[in-house]
């Protein structure tokens, strides 16, 4: 009984405390020019809501989105906290008041990786099973 209780506590602590690059079924990727190898969930959210344009290490970043799909839905739910339509409305309100440009969108994981690999400062997301050759994977704290 004691071991079971101790195991449960340790498992709970581990679940909360261990940083993970993989939330749900996605992973966060960035162009190799981005200096850091980890990013906080708050920073990630701020970047994709255009309230932050650089990470804590000073790297300037440019968010890249997938047009739709399970990775896109999972990313918005996990890290941005908005539905797809709410997120689109939010970004359009910035674009149509001159406060931001519409982020680049890609049609698939492969297109996302290709764009992030060739674009300085690009940061995006792909499904956990996608190949990430040419980009770096960021841990999310």
């Amino acid at each position, binding site marked *: 009984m004691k071991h079971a209780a101790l195991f449960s506590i340790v498992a709970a602590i581990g679940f909360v405390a261990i940083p993970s690059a993989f939330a749900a079924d996605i992973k966060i990727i960035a162009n190799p020019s981005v200096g850091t190898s980890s990013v906080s969930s*708050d920073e990630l959210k701020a970047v994709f809501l255009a309230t932050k344009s650089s990470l804590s290490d000073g790297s300037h970043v440019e968010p890249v989105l997938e047009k739709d799909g399970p990775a896109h839905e999972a990313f918005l739910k996990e890290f941005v906290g908005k539905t797809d339509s709410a997120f689109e409305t939010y970004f359009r309100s910035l674009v*149509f008041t*001159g406060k931001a440009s519409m982020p680049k969108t890609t049609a698939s994981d492969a297109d996302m990786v290709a764009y992030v690999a060739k674009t300085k400062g690009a940061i995006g997301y792909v499904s956990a099973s996608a190949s990430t050759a040419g980009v770096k994977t960021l841990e999310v704290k």
Partner: protein
Amino acid sequence: MKLMVRTIFKTALLCAAPLMLHAQFDFKVDGRDVQVHSFASQGFMYSNDNNYMTMPTSTGSFAFTDFGANVSTQLTDKLRVGAQIYDRNIGQLGKWHPTLDWAVADYKFKDWFGIRAGKVKTTLGLYNDTQDMAFLQTWALMPQSLYSLDQRGTMISHMGGDIYGDVSLKRLGGLAYTIYGGEQPQDSTGGWVYAMQTSNRIGLTADGLPIIVANPVHSIGSYGGPVYGADLRWTTPVKGLLVGESYVNQDRSATGTWYANDLPFHFKTDKDDTYASYVDYSIGKLRLNGEYRRELFYAQQTSPTSSTVFGPNTDKDIRSGYVSAAYRITKMLEVGSYYSRFYNSWSILHSDPLNHVFDYAVTARIDLRNYLDLKVEGHFIDGTMPGLTVSRGFYAADNPNGFKPDTRLLVIRFEYHL
């Protein structure tokens, strides 16, 4: 009928042209991405009795069109430039006079400190700066108590500058601030000028009761003035909850001539302070909004018999607000409802239909495509407040047989945006 057909044709062309050009489109200039976006809407209104928003809505009207387009580019990591033009025709308002909606150079020194300068959309409450882009909203008509189609011209933007920034509070969420100052744009085709030029004004007796003042102003030459304000909003640690406060001071003045004798007319505000509080809460597919605004307003104008003596005075406490709920049922369908209240003068009898406009609205928004939507909306409006310079859609000139106290209004709006 011909005008209606022309209006529909023009709008259809406006919607089709960018689709054919596939704009939103990006292109490169000197290696930099330049984005072009556009939007357009065509609406229809029908009311049971009172004509609304300077349109002949009691017989049905399509005189409800607007459109705009913007171009912008990120010149460096910190510097953005862009501009948007806008045009509208709503009954007797707008009259197809294109305006520069905004034109901005935006330099972001740090995430917590940036500067915008040019013609900048004004941050006030949740939606002041985006109220002219209906496609961003659930509603065909925004709550008119705060976001009136007819009175928004001077408040929606300013020629000047903002300082702004976002500050992380870590576990306490984040703050976003805006401080601005400048000059309000002239709104020669808006509701205030329309009311002054066409309607017998309704003044107030010493007891605060409304009376008709049979001295309509002949023409208004200029209307606008300096403005400054601030907004602070807190993204709270509660997921989906944002609260905020705004303040704006306006110093409006107008010049014109009196109809009766061509004597010069002067109007000026000695006090015009607006305080706004707001809350935005989203959970899943449900979005709840609430806003409250209080405007302390003191204005003077010259009389028909003297161009130098100011009087009568207008001193009032204007209060307004709304609550709303919207729910996205499917990717294609969103429904919502709001209840909006506007009191012209808090110290006067609230139940007097000449002193208030209450509006209960129910909406269905159908997203036909990612870039096209259709809204069908019903309004149950109590009160009219006709002929006043803070009108909310009802004008004596459009209702020569007088007003019924209640209005039932159907609004249908077809919108495109890329």
